[in-house]
């Protein structure tokens, strides 16, 4: 067990290192130079002033150092928790920008992932036992999983937001409100949260439901289920066993799907201009803000890795084979 976790930790550490390195490299390979565009935006005409500003910004962001040194400095700063200064929102520190956005993304992602997973599994298992439901659910589920988040999100924003006017089309909360602990504000937050959440939930829900339905049908036809049935065990008991076994691949699936879900949430945020990380990534790319891009990716990488790690731990709990098999093999 301990070895298993240690080995996992090592793998995650390596993944983290590689991901962060790639993440550091990518913006630097993009065409163009952020300092130039920063100065161009400032519309400074004086050549001396331009040179002074360029030198100042280059040393401020450390672009005047050799690439390798920049990379080492980046790690040093990172370990100290310093993500640098945003170029786009100069002079706001990247950390401040991200901290404001992260809660929105988490509040969107966590419920969307968990609820869709729970509800999808429950509904899939339920549907597997009723022919009429199965017949209708299967095509609907397939359509839902195949739907791109963005497309569904735009449809919902247009239909329920602009045309019907039930939900707001943009933002984290209404423009007339100030954040406070009032019911009005919390209700407003929830109202703004609903559409982005629903679009994520619906798409993910379809996938889990289909997966679970297939697994249950497979498990119910397995030898142990037939054997139990032959022994005269109640259907309820058999189903419970089947459900437990069907659950395992679904948990693995959750780990695998996390990345996709996060990407989906980012797109959804862009559509609803929901002030989370996805929105920031888009802006960071558009404005060639290396530091903000690095910072947001870093958060996402950490988030996905932690989630995967948690799932690994959960796996050892729900599947005894993991504990025994891995312990014995080594």
């Amino acid at each position: 067990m301990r070895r298993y976790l240690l080995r996992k930790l090592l793998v995650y550490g390596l993944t983290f290192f590689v991901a962060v390195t790639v993440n550091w490299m990518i913006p630097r390979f993009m065409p163009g130079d952020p300092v130039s565009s920063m100065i161009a935006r400032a519309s400074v005409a004086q050549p001396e002033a331009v040179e002074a500003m360029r030198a100042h910004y280059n040393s401020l962001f450390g672009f005047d150092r050799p690439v390798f040194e920049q990379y080492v400095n980046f790690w040093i700063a990172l370990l100290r928790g310093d993500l640098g200064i945003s170029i786009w929102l100069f002079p706001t520190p990247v950390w401040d920008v991200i901290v404001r956005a992260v809660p929105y993304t988490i509040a969107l992602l966590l419920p969307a992932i968990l609820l869709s997973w729970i509800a999808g599994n429950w509904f899939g298992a339920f549907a597997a036992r009723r022919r009429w439901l199965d017949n209708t659910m299967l095509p609907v589920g397939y359509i839902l999983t195949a739907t791109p988040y963005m497309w569904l999100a735009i449809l919902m924003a247009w239909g329920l937001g602009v045309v019907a006017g039930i939900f707001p089309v943009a933002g984290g909360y209404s423009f007339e409100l100030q954040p406070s602990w009032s019911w009005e504000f919390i209700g407003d937050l929830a109202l703004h949260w609903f559409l982005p959440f629903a679009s994520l939930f619906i798409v993910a829900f379809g996938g889990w439901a289909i997966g679970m339905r297939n697994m249950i049908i497979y498990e119910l036809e397995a030898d142990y289920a037939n054997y139990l049935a032959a022994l005269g065990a109640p259907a309820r008991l058999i189903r419970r066993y089947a459900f437990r076994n069907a659950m395992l691949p679904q948990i693995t699936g959750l780990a695998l799907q996390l990345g996709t879900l996060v990407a989906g949430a980012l797109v959804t945020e862009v559509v609803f201009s929901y002030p989370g990380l996805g929105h920031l990534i888009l802006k960071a790319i558009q404005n060639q803000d290396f530091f903000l891009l690095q910072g947001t990716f870093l958060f996402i990488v950490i988030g996905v890795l932690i989630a995967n790690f948690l799932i690994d731990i959960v796996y050892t709990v729900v599947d005894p084979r993991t504990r025994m098999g891995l312990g014995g093999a080594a």
Partner: protein
Amino acid sequence: MRRHRWKVLAVSLAACLAAAACSGGSQTPSAPTGSAPASQPAAGGGGASGALPRHETLYTSGTQWGPPSNWNPIREWDFATGTKGLVYETLFLYDPNADQLVPWLAESGTWVEDKVYELKLRQGVTWADGKPFTADDVVFTFELGKMDTVPYSNLWNFLDKAEAVDQHTVRFTFKEANYQQWSIHLYSRAIVPKHIWEGRSEEEVIEGTNENPIGTGPYQYHSHDQDRMVWVKRDGWWATQQLGKDVKPKYIVDIVNSSNEVAMGLLLQGQLDLSNNFLPGIANLVQNKNFGITTFYPEPPYMLSANTAWLVLNTTRKPMDDPAFRKAVAHSIDVKKIVEGVYGNLVRPANPTGLLPQWEKYIDQDVVNRYGFSYDPDKAKKLLADAGYRDRDGDGFVERPDGGKIDLKIIVPAGWTDWMEAIRVISEGAKAVGINLNPEFPDFNALVDARAAGKFDMLINNERQLASTPWHYYDYMYQLPIRKQQNTVNFGRYEDKEAWELVRELDNKKTDDLEGMKQVISRLQERHLRDLPIIPLWYNGLWSQVTSGTWKNWPSSAPNAPKHAPTMWRNWHELGAILMLTELQPAGR
């Protein structure tokens, strides 16, 4: 049982979200150590809940492309919407309709000698912290320009000194009397309070966020978040007592742009009063009265003109260094097709001189008739043939007189859809007369780099806005010397010493010497049209769509309506947009 657990989960998540928004959202800039009364106005006049009452709030968008990150009026390119105009004010306003400077913080200004300008300041103006506004503040503000990185540092190339004669008089002594340029400075520079800004280092002045801005204007900081900037009206704005002008909205919420769709959605829902976004196809919505969206003109071009979109040719490259070739290009462009097809008549074609409609009186019609150009493919072909451009290898495109192949690129930033379509039209037109010109869409930053370094063939640019004098445009066209990096002017790197001399001569004309100005401008126009170093295409609009659900009496072309610029764009408040706010009326519904 399980269902119950979900409920708990959902509620706790909502709470988490709320907590997040509270902790992260309203980071009120901490007040500097100085005394600053009323820096934290009571949140909202109406409703115990703190919601801004709709009937007292003006919602705007179209200026801010990222979260408000500074309130520094020196950063004229990215300060939070309204920092200059709503909080910090200028000495004069410029009224483009009457073409004159309107006294604002200054009461009057006169040239007492050829090189001495004396400014009388308005009395009884106070800063938001109660301190009086004096000549020292004005001198201090202009002297900030002695720092190299302050955008108006070039002022000190021709300004010798600025001194406070008494509390309300400032005297400027010039090394060279650049009257035209000076008139732009007079209404463009936001005056900052010396007692707060004194002692700030150059870095703080140019890079400081200047949280809790203290100005003389009608509004003060209320709050901000990633997607909005909220201003609240303050008591004691000088113009209310002295000019009887009062800004009507108690709150102004400027919404950060996310996308056209979102702006359009908010506008249709009536949640947005003034949108300064470019919304393609808005003409259809304006014509259908049911949507309740109006623009300055009810018919084409719908918008006032804000700037000229120019086709910039890199005159250091062949064959763009040849006036005959440039003229052929100019004759090959079907601007009408761009105006109608790409913009749906939201813009209007530019005059061959490129001077904005507001400057019509400066256009010398004789010169335009003699040297002007219009869309005429046959003429373009003839111009090419006469200058020796022929198709020698039969590929359908002409070669240079010296036999070199022509393979040119025209660039605009990726994602600027209207411009992307426009350069497709330009490329088609050029190909039709035998010029091999292809559109390309680099990333914006890459384009900026190429533009500054002169590594392009052709591009479109519209960065020079309306100003009090056409000198502003000729400076943009001809400014010399050419530098390693051309960041704001003369991107085409065109060297014409005589023209630049004329521009300087124009600069030395007094602003009330209309005839003298016209004379020089006429010669400049002739030079421009003869050599055509840069080709005017169309007048970009002062994008502005309004809804009248909450506020009415918007500026429009209707007989009794105000005529001020209906915008919140940066650096437009001093072009009269602040007066728009004083003319608004509650719709009373």
